[in-house]
């Protein structure tokens, strides 16, 4: 048992994950007001996507430029539930058809569309948040990987899907809220999600889920599956000739990444209070890849730190230089990618970690002589 635990969670990794947990669950809440903390919560919901990308891109070698699709599907499922709760007949009495979401009323719908109906149920919504994106990812990846479509072609197709879904959402505004998205979400089963107290609860829920996801990803990485993924990334044919059905592993890891993204999307909707097509399209999807690249695509924790760093920089730059911040951010990306191709995690493992371990070693090697010297004086 302990051997099993050790093999999937070596001491180093365990310490690093603990450090992350302490940082986001103790240090951030103690050092920030609720406004900033809520922002961090929003960044952390992107970290789910980056984590998924680290698995499927960093380890599996499958670059997806359409993770926004799954983030969006998860987020929209959550938003549909919350919107239905906010659109009770009492709240929407001024509409021509009370009891349906306001944007439907503006678009002359007079009844709730059939696919909205199940979202009255919280249980169904919880399942749908994961199931809808996973089923979609499954269909896409079966269609691609079984035909051995991969590499750049796969990336382009995922990007096309992101574009298609955005156009679909914007075009069908009577059913989806269009460009405006689904806004003005208020309560979750009667619990007001806009209060400060709720924001704290949601923040910690988000952190817990994220740490859980990191552990899950770590488990996958250290399992036989994880080693197969790396092998596939580096020499796909050799794995295939060894008798493995490569496509099944790819489908699995892509679906897992989709599920993580969707979880992030749902947490995003809960913390930010709305969902719109601007998180589904090509630009946000590529941004999510950038988070992962900055953090270091070969590192699970790097993805989380990368997301935090990029978003925090974005906020700080844009607050200080409202008209110039995009240039600064662009320079940061180019700088990081040029100077440190393995991202933050690469910087850590090449520069900081050796020094730290050397320092630890020095500390340890200093102890025995001191102990022996005290022993000497005693004798």
């Amino acid at each position, binding site marked *: 048992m302990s051997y099993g635990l050790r093999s999937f969670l070596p001491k180093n990794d365990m310490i690093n994950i603990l450090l992350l947990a302490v940082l986001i669950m103790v240090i951030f809440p103690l050092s920030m*007001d609720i*406004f900033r903390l*809520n*922002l961090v919560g*929003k960044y952390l919901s992107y970290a789910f996507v980056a984590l998924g990308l680290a698995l499927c891109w960093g380890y599996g070698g499958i670059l997806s430029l359409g993770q926004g699709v799954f983030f969006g599907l998860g987020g929209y499922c959550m938003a549909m539930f919350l919107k239905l709760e906010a659109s009770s007949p009492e709240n929407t009495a*001024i509409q*021509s058809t009370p009891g349906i979401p306001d*944007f439907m009323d*503006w*678009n*002359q719908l007079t009844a709730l569309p059939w696919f909205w109906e199940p979202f009255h149920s919280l249980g169904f919504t919880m399942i749908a948040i994961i199931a809808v994106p996973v089923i979609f990812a499954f269909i896409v990846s079966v269609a691609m990987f079984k035909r051995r479509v991969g590499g750049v072609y796969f990336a382009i197709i995922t990007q096309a899907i992101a574009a298609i879904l955005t*156009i679909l959402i*914007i*075009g069908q*505004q009577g059913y989806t809220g*269009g*460009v*405006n*998205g689904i*806004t*003005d*979400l208020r309560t979750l089963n009667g619990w007001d999600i*806009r209060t400060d107290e709720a924001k704290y609860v949601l923040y910690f829920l988000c952190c817990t889920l994220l740490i859980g996801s990191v552990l899950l990803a770590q488990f996958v990485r250290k399992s036989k599956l994880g080693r197969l993924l790396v092998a596939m990334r580096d020499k796909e044919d050799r794995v295939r000739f060894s008798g493995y059905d490569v496509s099944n592993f790819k489908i699995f890891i892509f679906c897992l990444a989709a599920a993580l993204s969707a979880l992030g999307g749902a947490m995003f909707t809960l913390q*930010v*209070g*709305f969902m*719109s097509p*601007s*998180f589904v399209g090509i630009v946000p999807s590529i941004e999510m890849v950038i988070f992962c690249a900055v953090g270091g695509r070969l590192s699970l924790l790097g993805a989380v730190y990368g997301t935090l760093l990029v978003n925090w920089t974005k*906020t700080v730059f*844009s*607050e200080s230089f*409202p*008209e110039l*911040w*995009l240039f600064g951010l662009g320079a940061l990306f180019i700088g990081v990618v040029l100077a440190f191709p393995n991202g933050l995690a690469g910087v850590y493992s090449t520069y900081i970690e050796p020094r730290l371990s050397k320092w630890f070693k020095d500390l340890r090697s200093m102890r025995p002589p001191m102990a022996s010297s005290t022993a000497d004086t005693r004798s």
Partner: protein
Amino acid sequence: MLSKTLSSKLKKTALALSAGLFLTPTISHADAVNTTGLAVTDDTVTVGILHSVTGTMAISETGSVQAEKLAIEQINAMGGVLGRKIEYIQEDGASDWPTFAEKSKKLLVNDKVAAVFGCWTSASRKAALPVFEQYNGMLYYPTFYEGLEQSPNVIYTGQEATQQILEGLDWAAQTKGAKKYYLLGSDYIWPRTSNKIARKHIENVLKQKVVGEEYYPLGHTQFNSVINKIKLKKPDVVFISVVGGSNVAFYKQLKAAGIDMTKEKPLFLTISVTEDEILGIGGENIEGIYASMKYFQSLPNENNKKFVEAFKAKWGKDIVIGDVTQAAYLGPWLWKAAVEKAGSFDVDKVREASPGIELTTAPEGYVKIHKNHHLWSKTRIGLAQPDGQYKVVYESDELIEPDPFPEGYQ
């Protein structure tokens, strides 16, 4: 904490005493005009400006930022609001709707601004609105928009759909004898709602015919098929609510298809092309179309002449001023008037004081805040000139009442 409240109480009593003793008209103390902890000191008050200065919307929103800064500067030159200079914190919405929500929250919660001038697209307003309602902020929103909204936390300084549309359609029917209409728009809430209102008005009030209604995605650039349909159906009026970059393609393709817009067959009536857009389209490509809105840079009145002069002096002589820019300019002035009427910066008191606030110095002429938080305003029809300006050919006689929830048009 205790000492703080104590000292502020002492200050208040001291102030009351001094006022009572000497009966001098002093500037009221910060605590007296601000009971809710806004960023107000004895000589400054902080407001927020929240527009996109980066991203696709930057080109449209820059004018609003400039107008708001100009208004604030002018108000400060006149001595400020309740004796306090206005300072502003500018934030970038980055053409990204959640960023608008995030920055609104930052302005209201962290910076405690007394009012925010900002948002442009409906989507950004919809995203920011819950934040303003939750933290009880005050937003001055400048863009003409679809209506169907009336928040206690927003003053809408642009026109809502009925104000802009009905007058334009009546004008086309009466002076141009229009009978057949073709409705064309970008595919999102504002054009769809506008055309819904237009269709009801054309069919039920004017008793005329709509021969076509079409929508294209935002950013669409291929209008050949709709141009052919227009040629085929021969409407008298093409009523257009196409927005953004699509306009450039649309008008150039119209011209390339051999349609001379100055012949008015059909007559092109837009509710979305201001002087700002013409800058991108090119005056020669759009000469002869009509626009129905409340403000044109060429409005021949004294207020406007002064405004245009000041605007150019501050931001460059080649700059153009469109409808929304002018509406944005009204924001700080309307807020100032409401604060002074209320004698307080408190959002609740400003809200209470707002209905009935008049502005006689507005560049568009006289405006007044309705109790539904929209403005009474006139609607004008402008004829596009090759130099990129509009010539005003018609003006409504009366101020038009804002009606964000028009009955019979829903």
